[in-house]
C-alpha cells in the first residue's frame, strides 16, 4: 500500500577511500508516513547524514549507493534518471543542513538564492522578487526587502536558517529532510526555529525526516523515532513507546546517558566501531552487556516485535 510516503528498504552505501571501503550504510530500513515527523537519532558517524543524502541521491564519489530501494510516493528514487531525480529535489523532497551560513553561497544575495529555489523562470522579474520577499516575511525575517539584498555573511545563524527554511519549503515539498538544523544555533534560537518549522510544515502538510543526535529534541518534535547505529536502524517506534519501553540495548544506553541531576553520568562502554572493519554480526555486540553467542556471528534483521515497534536484536526474536 503506498499509504506510506517514503519507504527505504535495505539501503547500502559504501565509500571507497584509499584507506579501505567505509561501509557507511549497511541495510537501512525506514518508513515515513504522510504528515508524519520521524526522527533519525544516532551518534556522530552512525550514518544519519549519509542516509539523508542517499535518499536524495546526493552521494558523490568516492561514495556510491550499492543497493536498496527508496520508494517515494510510489517511485523508486534509486532507479530514476538524472533528470528525473533532479526534478524531485527541491520540489518534492527538500533538505536543510546543519550550518546555515556555510550552506549558503557567499557571493550571491539571499534573495537570489531564494528565487532559484522557487523556480521563477516563467515569472517577470518583479513578480519573482515579490514572491521571494513574501517568503522571507513568512519565515519571520525582519525587513524582508532589505534582507533580500543581503549576503549570507551578514546574517546570524538563526536568520540564515530561517532563509534556508524559506528556500526549502517554498515549493511545498511532500518531505522535508532536516539534518541537525539547530545543532549549531544558540539554545534560545533553537526553540524559535523549531516552532517555525513545526508551524510551516503543518501548513503545507509535509512530512519531516528530522535528523539529530539529541534525543531530547527528538522527543519534543517527532511522532516516531528511528535509532541508528553504525549504518543501520536498530530500533523504530513512536515517541512514547521509545521512551517508556526501549528494547534495544543501545537505545537503553542512549536514554540512560541523558544527564539526570543527582545521578552519576552514565556512558555506554567501548568505542564507536571503525566502519572499514566493522564488528561481525551485530555491530553493537562488543559494547553490549547482554550479548549472546549468536550476536557476534549473525546480523540481526529488523523485525516488528509489537505493533509499530521494530527492533534489530537477537534478544527479541519472537
Amino acid at each position: 500500500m503506498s499509504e506510506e510516503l517514503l519507504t527505504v528498504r535495505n539501503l547500502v552505501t559504501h565509500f571507497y577511500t584509499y584507506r579501505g571501503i567505509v561501509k557507511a550504510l549497511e541495510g537501512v530500513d525506514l518508513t515515513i508516513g504522510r504528515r508524519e515527523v520521524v526522527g533519525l537519532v544516532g551518534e556522530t558517524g552512525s550514518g544519519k547524514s549519509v542516509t539523508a543524502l542517499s535518499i536524495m541521491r546526493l552521494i558523490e564519489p568516492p561514495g556510491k549507493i550499492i543497493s536498496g530501494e527508496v520508494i517515494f510516493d510510489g517511485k523508486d528514487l534509486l532507479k530514476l534518471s538524472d533528470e528525473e531525480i533532479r526534478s524531485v529535489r527541491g520540489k518534492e523532497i527538500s533538505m536543510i543542513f546543519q550550518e546555515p551560513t556555510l550552506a549558503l553561497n557567499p557571493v550571491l544575495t539571499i534573495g537570489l538564492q531564494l528565487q532559484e529555489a522557487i523556480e521563477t523562470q516563467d515569472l517577470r522579474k518583479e513578480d519573482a522578487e515579490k514572491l521571494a520577499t513574501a517568503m522571507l516575511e513568512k519565515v519571520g525575517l525582519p525587513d524582508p526587502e532589505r534582507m533580500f539584498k543581503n549576503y549570507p555573511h551578514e546574517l546570524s545563524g538563526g536568520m540564515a536558517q530561517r532563509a534556508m527554511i524559506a528556500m526549502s519549503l517554498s515549493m511545498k515539498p511532500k518531505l522535508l529532510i532536516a539534518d541537525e538544523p539547530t545543532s549549531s544555533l544558540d539554545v534560545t534560537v533553537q526553540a524559535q526555529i523549531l516552532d517555525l518549522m513545526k508551524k510551516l510544515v503543518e501548513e503545507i502538510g509535509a512530512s519531516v525526516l528530522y535528523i539529530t543526535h539529541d534525543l531530547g529534541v527528538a522527543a519534543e518534535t517527532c511522532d516516531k523515532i528511528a535509532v541508528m547505529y553504525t549504518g543501520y536502524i536498530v530500533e523504530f517506534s513512536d515517541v512514547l513507546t521509545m521512551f517508556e519501553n526501549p528494547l534495544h540495548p543501545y537505545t537503553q544506553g542512549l536514554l540512560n546517558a541523558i544527564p539526570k541531576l543527582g545521578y552519576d553520568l552514565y556512558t555506554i562502554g567501548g568505542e564507536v566501531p571503525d566502519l572499514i572493519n566493522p564488528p561481525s554480526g551485530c555491530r553493537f555486540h562488543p559494547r553490549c552487556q547482554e550479548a549472546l553467542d549468536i550476536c557476534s556471528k549473525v546480523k540481526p534483521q529488523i523485525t516488528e516485535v509489537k505493533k509499530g515497534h521494530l527492533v534489530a536484536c537477537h534478544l527479541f526474536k519472537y
Partner: protein
Amino acid sequence: MGFLMDLRTYILRRLLLMVLVLFGVLVITFLLSHVVPADPIGAILGPQAPIDMVEKIRHEWGFDRPLYEQFVDYVWRVLHGDLGKSIRTNRSVTSDLMNYFPATIELATFSTFLAIVMGIPLGIISAMKKDKIPDHFARVFAISGISIPVYWLELVMLIVFYYQLGLLPGPGRLDPYMAYPPRVTGLLLIDSLLARRLDAFVNGLQHLIIPSFVLGMFGAAGIARMTRSSMLEVLKKEYVRTAKAKGLRERIVVTRHILRNALIPTVTVVGVTYGGLLEGSILTETILAWNGLGQYATGSFLYLDFMAVMGVTLFIAVIYSLMNLFVDILYAYLDPRIRYG
C-alpha cells in the same frame, strides 16, 4: 551607504600600502645603483670613460655627499621623471622607456589574455576530472611551465614553425617590407586600426602568435594550477551541496555556484602572471626582434648602460605593483564578504 565606505577604505589602505612598497622599491634601486657597484660613476659612465672625467662627474653629481642626501636627491629626481641618461642611446632614459614600453605592454597583455583563456578551462577540467587523464595532463603541463626556459621554447618554435615549416612569420612585429602605421599609442594593433591599415593589423596579429602563445603557455600553467586548487576547495563546500539539493540544473550549479566562487582567487594569480610575462619579455624580445622594453633592457645589460638598467628595473617594478594593486581591488570588489564587510 555603509558598503561603499568599506570598499573605499579598503582601496585607500591598499593604496597606502602600495606607496610604502614603492618607497621600498626606490630604496632597493637606489642601493643597487649608488651603493652596490664598486664604482657607481664608473658604472654609469661606462668602462671607456677617462678617469679625470669620472672624478669630475662624481663631484658634480654629488656622489661624494652623504648617502641619505644622495637618496633624497634620487627620490626627488625620480618623482620628477628624471631617470638619468642612457649612454647607449644618448637620450634620457625616461624618453627611451616611453618609446619602448608600448610594444612590451602589447605583448604582455596579449599573452596574459591567452594565458587566461588557456589556463582557466584547463584548471576547471583538471579539478572536475581529478586524478584522471586530463588532470595528469594538466599537471605535466604545469610542471613543464616551470621547467622550460622561455627563450629556448621561443627558439624552438621559430625553428620549427618559421625556419623549417614556414607556417608562421619570423622575428619582428611586422614583416620586414611592411611599413608601420603612424604612431598614436605605440600599440601596433590599435594604431593600425586607427590608421585603417588592415594589412598591418593582420600581419601584426600573425607576428604576435608565436611570442604570445609561448609566453601565454607559461602563464597558463600557473593559472591552471591556481584554478584547479581553487575549484577543488569550492567543490568541497556545503553550498554546492545545497545548490544540488535545490534541484538546480547542472549548468547553473557550475556557473553560478562553483565558478563564481572558484574564479575569485584566480584573479590574484593574474597579477603575478603579468609580472612573469614582463620577465619573459626581457628574455625573449631580442630573439624576436621585438623592439620593446626587453630588448632595450638586454641591450643595456650588454653595453653596461647602468642608468638604463636601473630605469627599466624601476619601471617594471612600478608596473608590476600597479598590476597587483588593480588585481587586489578587483578581488575585493568581486567578493561580497570584503566589499560589504
